[in-house]
């Protein structure tokens, strides 16, 4: 079984998504076998129904003496599917068992899923949000738990998914066999932004992976985390340039002087941002109504820093949507 079998019917059209993991090629083999098996059964039945319908339609002169009762055929089409099913069950179960126990030397990655983002952490503490860098050809075992509801870590290109439950760990392991970037989805319904809880798995060559692992800061991009919170807490609902609600734009706000409703003006520094989040009515910007709800008690210190880091990172790029 070549490592990356692709079932491509014609050059352009790809029936099966790129198979990029060892498990994927085995699953694809079973999928194709089942497709052929069930396809033939469906076609045979279709042909029979159409042929009988045409040949024995009313008004057509044809021999219609009722056939004698054939018990044999009924036994045949009960036992044959039974045997085939046992075969298919065994094949699928064998693959499922190999999926269930990861090799001992697999590279550990721990994942914490929370409502609408994936937080991943590598062996040496290197953390990522919604992204997973893995080496080519080495087994990786992902140990996952959830902070709130059930999510599901799904990588179509690897043909693998595993639900992530609160209160316990679940595992998923794979060996990437193709370089490149593959989409990551959450496939168990988990609330409003279930469809935004996506990410990507980046497969690097072992040397690149080693360099990447060592180089990056151990902290995840605070701005990255802030941006996820900015959306999840609903700030983007008003402060996003595309939003219909009249709210001050935050792009490049950090360090700018802001003119307030009561005539005062001040430089937008970290404290101003922090107060505006916790006590929005204190410094209302000129020309805006004080409608922003207070987030006091709903954001922790760590969240505040992340939000502020995000706003700092937006430094005055033009607010194109």
């Amino acid at each position, binding site marked *: 079984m070549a490592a990356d079998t692709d079932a491509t019917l014609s050059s352009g059209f790809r029936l*099966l998504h790129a198979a990029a993991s060892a498990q994927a090629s085995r699953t694809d083999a079973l999928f194709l076998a089942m497709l052929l098996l069930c396809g033939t059964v469906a076609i045979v039945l279709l042909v029979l129904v159409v042929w009988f*319908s045409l040949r024995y*339609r009313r008004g057509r002169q044809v021999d*219609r003496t009722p056939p004698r009762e054939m018990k044999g055929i009924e036994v045949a089409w009960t036992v044959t599917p*039974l045997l085939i099913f*046992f075969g298919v069950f065994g094949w699928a179960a064998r693959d499922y*068992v190999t999926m269930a126990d990861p090799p001992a030397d697999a590279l550990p990655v721990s994942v914490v899923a929370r409502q609408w983002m994936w937080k991943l952490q590598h062996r040496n503490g290197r953390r990522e949000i919604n992204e997973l860098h893995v080496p080519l050809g080495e087994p990786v075992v992902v140990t996952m738990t959830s902070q709130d509801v059930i999510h599901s870590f799904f990588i179509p290109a690897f043909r693998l998914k595993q639900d992530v439950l*609160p209160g316990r760990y679940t595992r998923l392991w794979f060996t990437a066999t193709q370089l490149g970037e593959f*989409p990551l989805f959450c496939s168990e319904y988990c609330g*409003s932004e279930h469809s935004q809880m996506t990410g990507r798995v980046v497969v690097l060559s072992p040397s690149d992976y080693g360099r990447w692992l060592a180089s990056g800061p151990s902290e995840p991009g605070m701005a990255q985390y802030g941006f996820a919170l900015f959306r999840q807490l609903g700030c983007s609902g008003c402060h996003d340039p595309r939003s219909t609600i009249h709210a001050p734009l935050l792009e490049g706000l950090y360090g700018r002087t802001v003119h307030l409703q009561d005539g005062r003006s001040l430089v937008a520094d970290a404290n101003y941002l922090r107060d505006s989040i916790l006590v929005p009515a204190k410094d209302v910007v000129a020309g805006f109504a004080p409608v922003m709800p207070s987030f006091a008690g709903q954001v922790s210190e760590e969240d505040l820093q992340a939000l502020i880091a995000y706003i700092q990172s937006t430094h005055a790029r033009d607010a194109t949507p």
Partner: protein
Amino acid sequence: MTTDALPASYLEDGMSLRSWLTTTDHKRIAILYALSITAFFFVGGAAATIIRMELATPAGDLVSNDAYNKLFTAHGVIMVWLFLIPSIPSVLGNFLLPLMLGARDLAFPRLNLLSWYLYLAGGLITLEALLLGGVDTGWTFYTPYSTMFSNTYVVLTLVGVFVTGFSSILTGLNFIVTIHTLRAPAMGWFKLPLFAWAMYATSLILVLATPVLAITTLLVAAERLFQIGIFDPAYGGDPLLFQHLFWFYSHPAVYIMVLPAMGVVSEIIPCFARRPVFGYDTMAYAILAIASVGFLVWGHHMFVSGQSLAASMTFSLLSFLVAIPSAIKVFNWTATLYKGSIRFDAPMLYALGFVGLFTIGGLTGLFLASLSLDVHLTDTYFVVAHFHYIMVGGSVMAYFGGLHFWWPKATGRMYPEVWARIAAVLVFIGFNLTFFPQFILGVEGMPRRYHAYPPQFQVLNLFSSTGAGVLAIGYLMPLVYFAWSMGRGKAAGDNPFGAQGLEWQARSPPPTHNFDAPPVVPARVYDYQADEPLPEAAP
């Protein structure tokens, strides 16, 4: 239309609203059910239309993500509990069972009326929850999202589902006792029409599985209101316990939806092929086998949910076993056509459509029963396509087939044959165009319940959305021409299709007490002769 010597038909036997709303005549209750589930069908259909319009474009720009989540939940809840489960048993079953058994009415006529009122109450509660703001947990109500993280009208919807479930338990109870005690004396068990067998097996599941749904909704409501900690891991609960209890009901529930459809098709195909059904005994045993083995397989919904390896293997093996009786039935329907004298009236088109689409639905079920494939395919559009092929391609097609087949019996008038055939073909084409692309989307990994999706899935989603348009038209046509036929349809004789079965020995539409003279139970059931000419009553 009825000669004045004979008593009036059940339709004209008192036309006041009060007589309709306090009737205990199983035929009128069937009509009440028909009207109410048609209304809910179009509400659920509207939700489906908006969903398909939203999914025509990758970005989630038609409705907000919360609105989308509430839409697909409304579509699921309404279609499953307020349309599919009551559709064939409560409409066709209520109308036909006493007629087929040669009885005057069901065993408990007043309980039957109570069932309808409970169904209506449950439906209205669910609708109220929808209008107040909807629920966004999906029709599966998975915890801990439904118990702790959804701030929508979950408890109100669960009350609606509880009441509707109780209504279907009572209908099941009524059918079981009727089939056991009120059969015509000469009608032994193996002279029962297969539709009656299907009603019996469905009622067994209704009575034995629905209570577990009732207790599950109670537990979710209690957990949501009083934090009882059964499903909440913080207090030591287990979200998988909910899934076990929920799917213990919900998998047999899909057999509640498809078994009656099999019963209808087993009545239509022999009639229009003029051949006795192939292997009647095997078909009856297959119906019972589906109902009983159907209770053993629910774990195949939980292969990736964190269920133990041994349990997943057990459920996978049992799921393959439950596929055997369904396969046998499909082979028997096909064999029934052999050496027949086949006519392609609308009911037959729907029945043949059912056989084709149910075969694809069943075969793709085998993909999902194999463990390693399910790891890739579950929770994707492959599953959505699979269960729509069985529920819409199967049950709804058969329900429409049954409506057309027994319409002359219920109203005494013929439906317009040409329009009906056009509608049947349109539904078949629209259905395939809508749901076959979703199989490919599933294989490519598009997850379920996504408000916005990556652009590479758009082409197939566009196919699916256009197909949904065609399907919607196909479903609207019968509404129009059935209404037209009530007024100006041609008078149908007592047996326009030359069908076997006691219900065809009654007048069309039958009097309130069903039979003027006691029906004659034939020696052999489905005693059709392919070579004898058909009575020319039909157009």
